[in-house]
């Protein structure tokens, strides 16, 4: 599905990604875990072409898209559901979703867009009720639903998610991750970046561990869950907190 080789990128003089190589197979949920500032978001932003890489290559379904503009990436079937949702706060829920299908309209596929819209409403019925409400006025969980829905509108094959659980109540996080699993079951591929390592490893097939711009560890979700280093660094405190909070509810 996607293959990345020796990717380097950053801001001005600061190099954030120091030679990243990874791949995601069709139908997988792959996660990248790591501490704050490790470069996880930068990696996704670079794949989505919001940041131009300084070297390396990105192959999407075998096509080289290293230097393609952001709209090409979307057209090739790869969308990013960004960190912090990044909705259009002053536009209605429906408008937000429709814009997700922007790339379809150029190719006379506006019927697809309407069909997708219905599917999204089926997946998140609450959005159907709120379709003419301004997106900025929704709750955090609803906003995350709009963000995911918007990403799905363009018929992507690969969905990248950046910290989908951030700022959400644990119950909602569970719902969101359930949706991610559903997506995989529908044949989509998901690349997901999370700080909430425990929760994400429970649904992921494989995972990478990222530290200061490098991928230091790779393995199946089970392997990573069992890995001592990972447990100490990423699961220890988080794990405890998560179970505490989860248990409290």
């Amino acid at each position: 599905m996607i293959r990345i080789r020796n990717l380097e990128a950053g801001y001005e003089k600061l190099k954030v990604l120091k030679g990243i190589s990874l791949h995601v197979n069709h139908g997988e949920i792959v996660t990248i875990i790591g501490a704050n500032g490790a470069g996880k978001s930068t990696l996704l932003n670079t794949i989505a072409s919001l940041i131009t890489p300084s070297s390396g290559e990105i192959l999407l379904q075998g096509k080289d898209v290293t230097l393609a503009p952001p709209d090409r990436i979307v057209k090739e079937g790869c969308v990013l559901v960004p960190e912090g949702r990044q909705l259009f706060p002053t536009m209605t829920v429906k408008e937000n979703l429709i814009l997700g299908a922007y790339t379809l309209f150029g190719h006379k596929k506006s019927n697809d867009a309407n069909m997708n819209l219905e599917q999204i409403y089926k997946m998140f019925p609450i959005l159907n009720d709120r379709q003419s409400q301004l997106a900025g006025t929704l709750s955090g969980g609803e906003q995350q639903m709009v963000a995911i829905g918007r990403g799905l509108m363009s018929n992507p094959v690969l969905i990248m998610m950046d910290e989908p659980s951030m700022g959400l109540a644990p119950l909602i996080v569970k719902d969101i991750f359930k949706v991610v699993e559903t997506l995989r079951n529908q044949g989509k591929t998901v690349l997901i970046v999370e700080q909430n390592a425990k929760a994400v490893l429970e649904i992921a097939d494989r995972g990478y561990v990222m530290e200061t711009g490098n991928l230091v560890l790779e393995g199946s979700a089970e392997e990573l869950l069992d890995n001592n280093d990972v447990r100490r660094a990423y699961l220890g405190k988080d794990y405890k907190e998560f179970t505490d909070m989860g248990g409290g509810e």
Partner: protein
Amino acid sequence: MTSEQILQYIFSGITVGSIYALVAIGYNIIYNTTGIINLAQGEFVMLGGMIAYSLSQIMSLVPAVVLAVLITGAVGSLIEIVFIRRMKKSSVLGMIVITIGISIIIREIALLIWDEQIRALRFFTGNEISSIDILGARISPQVLWIVGVTALIVMALYLFFRFTLTGQAMRACSSNTRAAKLCGIRTSRMVNLSFMLAAGIGALGGCLVSPLTQTHYSMGSELAIKGFIVAILGGLGNPMAAVAAGLLLGLIESFSISFLPMVYKDVISILILLVILVLKPSGLFGSRQTSSLKDF
């Protein structure tokens, strides 16, 4: 003051106000997609009038106006490609300064092409001495054109931004540029489109007012300032409120003449600007929230 006089002042205010509103709409369109205040907006009005005048010498009025709008739109697009696109990383200060520079350059080029003479496009209907009686007040038929077309532009813009995909995409760029990119919207194309649209609307305004107010190479800066006052008054980024604010400022200016020497008319409107800026920068018609969620 008799009721006819009051009505006459109102008409005068609406005429002037519509012109201000057209300039302010241009500001808002560009501001919404780029966050730039394009101080060269007044020059588009001048260019529209001048180009239409020159073309009207060799063709009839309607194609001259249409061509003038298209050409000025192309100029707007060119300005974006040549100057603005390269300024991505620039500060607000840099943006103010460069648009001022651009406006000076356009003005000087206009001086070279059309020299210092004043030009006036012919009246759309009637002529210089036609006058329509409305409830005892009298106006030129051109005023109806100005007000009518302004209303049409506002409506068309509303429909465009609300119901067309391109319009929604432009609003998306203004709302959240990053997210717009992630949706596969080519933001640079939207920015370019906004310059084209703003220039075209400015040019149409220039054609509309030319028969009444005439066109002169240096008319732009005056309008740019008035248009900006109106844009602020209405709340930056809100074209609908700009129309209301434009009419309001037009009326204030018109009525201020009845009790103050006309020379200080501009002092009044700028004082209003300063007071608004200091007390309520979100504009008269915007609450603080809506201005933070800037929208069409």
